[in-house]
């Protein structure tokens, strides 16, 4: 039984933690909360200099050629710091979509710049508040031209390139395709949208006959997207686990420091049991995330099930830890100056980033239904 990260992977995690503790304090996160910047340039550039953006990109495309386990340990630290950086958009979504379905020419054109961090990529699926699906996606692609409106697009303001989910008119699930589009075209216009977590920029993007190319085959978009989402679900689960652990630690420190009715509030069972529940959910989430990472790293057949489990478990752990962290802080936790808000905001952002927990529970049970009757 060797269900743990290797010593090298743990060293990479330590390196990420040290860098982020030094360069990405809550004060640094706050500067992005209070500015119009889409992300923190200094932190992002520093992460790219350490090679993290290219960690899982093949060496032939300018990366380090490592795998999902290395991305997972980096993700956990980014989540712990609530880092205001476009890592998930550029890496889990854009780069992984290209690795999965793009031609060598498409990969050569974009992945080296993504690996170095020179440019940012993203994936645009949603079109407002209707769940994106073969029934609802309206953005269209024909004759090499893309038109439509996508929002909210994570890091949509600063990204140079995007993978876009479009309707190409096929029947049923074959209605959708993925296309690759350079966002620096005249006919692509974008503007920031306000979100619950301003430390992670989002935008509305309008395409008006923009040049684009298919990724993979026409009609394969929905299946490819689901595969990309499954990988991203595992990596985001590590961000959620990192965030939940940070929220638990913050709540614990406060429970030890704060006195009420003549004693530390951490001595009351109402507080202790809440923190114990945070710990229990966190450990379950960690274990499910580990399994997801293991399966992702071997591209195992059980990925959909493992990814859904990791996501559902981590979403619940982070939701509970972040909201109860504010509750344990009492009034001070609701102030702009205090730090619990960063995790409250980020926990909901991540909970919705790939669609809600309900959507993933449905995906999970659909997988169970495929398996043999118990």
């Amino acid at each position, binding site marked *: 039984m060797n*269900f743990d990260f290797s010593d090298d992977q743990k060293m990479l995690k330590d390196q990420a933690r040290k860098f982020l503790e030094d360069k990405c304090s809550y004060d640094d996160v706050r500067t992005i909360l209070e500015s119009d910047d889409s992300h923190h340039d200094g932190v992002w550039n520093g992460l790219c200099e350490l090679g993290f953006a290219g960690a899982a990109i093949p060496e032939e495309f300018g990366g380090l050629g490592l795998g999902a386990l290395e991305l997972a340990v980096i993700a956990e630290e980014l989540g712990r710091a609530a880092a205001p950086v476009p890592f998930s958009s550029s890496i889990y979504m854009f780069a992984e979509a290209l690795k999965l379905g793009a031609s060598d020419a498409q990969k050569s054109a974009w992945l080296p710049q993504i690996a170095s961090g020179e440019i940012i990529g993203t994936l645009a699926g949603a079109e407002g508040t209707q769940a994106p699906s073969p029934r609802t996606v309206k953005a269209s692609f024909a004759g090499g031209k893309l038109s439509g409106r996508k929002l909210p697009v994570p890091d949509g303001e600063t990204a140079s390139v995007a993978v876009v989910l479009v309707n190409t008119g096929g029947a049923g699930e074959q209605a959708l395709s993925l296309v690759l589009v350079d966002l620096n075209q005249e006919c692509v216009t974008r503007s920031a949208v306000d979100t619950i977590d301003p430390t992670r920029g989002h935008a509305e993007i309008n395409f008006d006959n923009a040049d684009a190319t298919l990724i993979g085959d026409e009609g394969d978009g929905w299946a490819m997207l689901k595969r990309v989402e499954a990988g991203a679900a595992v990596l985001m689960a590590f961000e959620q686990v990192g965030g939940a652990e940070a929220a638990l630690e913050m709540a*614990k420190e406060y429970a030890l420091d704060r006195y009420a009715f003549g004693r530390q509030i*951490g001595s009351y069972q109402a507080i202790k049991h809440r923190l114990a529940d945070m710990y229990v959910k966190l450990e*379950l989430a960690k274990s499910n995330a580990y399994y997801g990472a293991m399966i992702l*790293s071997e591209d195992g057949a059980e990925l959909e099930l493992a990814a859904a489990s990791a996501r559902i478990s981590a979403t619940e752990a982070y939701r509970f830890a972040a909201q109860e962290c504010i509750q344990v802080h009492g009034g001070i936790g609701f102030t702009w100056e205090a730090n619990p808000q960063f995790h409250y905001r980020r926990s909901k952002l991540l909970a919705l980033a790939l669609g809600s927990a309900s959507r993933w529970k449905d995906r999970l049970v659909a997988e169970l239904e495929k398996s043999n009757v*118990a």
Partner: protein
Amino acid sequence: MDFNDTPEEAKFRAEARAWLSANAKPKDPSKVKAGVSQKSEAERLARAKEWQAKKAEAGYAAITWPTEYGGLGGTPIQSVIYSQEESKFDVPGGFFEIGLGMCIPTMMKWATKEQCDRYVKPALFGEEIWCQLFSEPAAGSDVAGLRTKCEKDGDEWVINGQKVWTSGAHFCDYGIIVTRSDPTVPKHKGLTFFFLDMKTPGIDIRPIKQISGGSGFNEVFFNDVRVPDSQRLGDVGEGWKVSLTTLMNERLAIGQGSGVDYEELLKLARETELENGPAIKDSNVREKLADWYVQSQGLKYTKFRTLTALSKGQVPGPESSIGKIVSGPKMQDLAGFAMDIQGQGGVMQDTEESPMAGAFQNQWIGAAGYRIAGGTDEILRNIVSEQVLGLPQDIRVDKKVPFNELPGAGSKK
């Protein structure tokens, strides 16, 4: 990252499997988990004793114990590997866990060499069964508030009082007991610990009927029961320290529970029609099923993290403490929800009419006790918050006061 055995582990597993194949029958997967055995307790006990002797003879009954006491001198991971293999076979259990998991380890730490030579092996071979006499009517979670008293009389002690929730007392040969020797000092300082013969005159054992209808537990009354001073474990007044040895082993001995889980719920949901269609298509059913699947997997992989530490010869992290906090309420809620799926018919607890011979109904009743036995949900949360997270103990009003001056617990009301 993988789930593979090391070469040494694989070798041990193969040996264990070969021995089990030669000595036991594989489990029949078609058998339903109704949770109620058809055989009488006497029949099950006889079969369990026979199996225990066979297992002890082969060295598998106590893999981590020293060889001088009949163990294998093996590692914790070997013990786990054996259990994993044994769980695939139809072998009897349920009689020796407390004795070998809690009582005998306490003996090995506190009894004399001669006493260990006399008692350890017969327990290991299933010839003598042990029980633990701690809880009392007025001392459950707060076990140090116990009142059963012992008084010195020459070379003997005289015990009077009542114990409760004693698993298997009616078929046990020996027991370990903690008693109050001095009520005039604070509660933890006035306790003294013994082991005794359960056939000693003055011991009266009466079964407790549980809400499940079964009687796995007993009340045990002590009326002038005389125990030689040589059977005292630890010094007079040091009984709490000895008890902690037993209690530390309790969390290891009480498992994570078995019974119906998400697989059975999935099967039920596929086979049951609700008003608006098959239960498996109902979004509420799907959400709950997913939640319990994720909890089960989370526990399974948490155990794998613990096993990884054991496999590397490390001390496991505190994550193993979450098992019963999760599995207790899950057993109860899952079973209750499965009954909801059965609608009006869910009230039936019937081996013919109820799905899976009433397994959900049986579990729903039984789980209410599982959440209490071996540490309540609340005590386990105290343990996690204090021992894992480092939060302070609640303010204690009972620690420095003489026991007999405490309201409620001592002689003064």
